[in-house]
């Protein structure tokens, strides 16, 4: 199957893939870089959101939660 793929696709298209489309391959690299940046930023923001609203396993709040909210002491 690989041989038929090489014979029917690679051999006729070789001058295109190697010479004509060089700049398009560079453009595809640029597009891949943009996709990587967007995906990593999305992952980072989701992780940050999860961290801010999370609590530890013992039911205690995270330091950022304690920092963001007011502590009102109650005297009984």
């Amino acid at each position: 199957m690989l041989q038929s793929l090489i014979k029917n696709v690679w051999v006729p298209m070789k001058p295109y893939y190697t010479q004509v489309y060089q700049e398009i391959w560079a453009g595809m690299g640029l597009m891949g870089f943009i996709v990587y940046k967007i995906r990593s930023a999305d992952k980072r923001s989701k992780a940050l959101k999860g961290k801010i609203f999370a609590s530890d396993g013992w039911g205690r709040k995270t330091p950022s939660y304690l920092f963001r909210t007011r502590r009102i002491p109650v005297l009984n």
Partner: protein
Amino acid sequence: MNENLFTSFATPTMMGLPIVILIIMFPSILFPSSNRLINNRLISIQQWLVQLTSKQMMAIHNNKGQTWTLMLMSLILFIGSTNLLGLLPHSFTPTTQLSMNLGMAIPLWAGTVFMGFRHKTKAALAHFLPQGTPIFLIPMLVIIETISLFIQPMALAVRLTANITAGHLLIHLIGGATLALMDISPSTALITFIILILLTILEFAVAMIQAYVFTLLVSLYLHDNT
């Protein structure tokens, strides 16, 4: 009702597996290739159409630009056939997805820009300043031309996405309105149905025009840079 309108644009899955790749590859089946000199009617018509389009589109280019003929003809055939197949009821149109259109626009636009900077650096840089600009406007105009250059791939992708998505949404809405009006007032439903038919004819035209516009703009960017 809002939920139903936008679910038709969700990427399709069959039993949990995404089949969007199969859907994207499907239009290629409709364009058979042949090694014969004299073909059957279908292939002859397709070859005649491709020849007509390629002669008209590539006539303005020099030898370097004409090496992109295969790419541009594949592009217009793919976008045209995908858009037209999307007009079938309940079908999925890959060109409604911005990710897909950006994936087509960014490499092609970047390819033309890199080609321009690599082979004709001075001319490519000269595009940032139109001829006959007054001296005190030069800094602002260079900034404006740079912004307009970087907006080109975004405009290409968003134009195609918005046109096809908006057309499909309108057909959904007016079809839904026709159905809802049939019980209330058949005469109004008839008018809405006539509007739906006219809109469908418009969408056929828009499908082909958007394919042509996308390819023509890429061809123009190529002409500027070769």
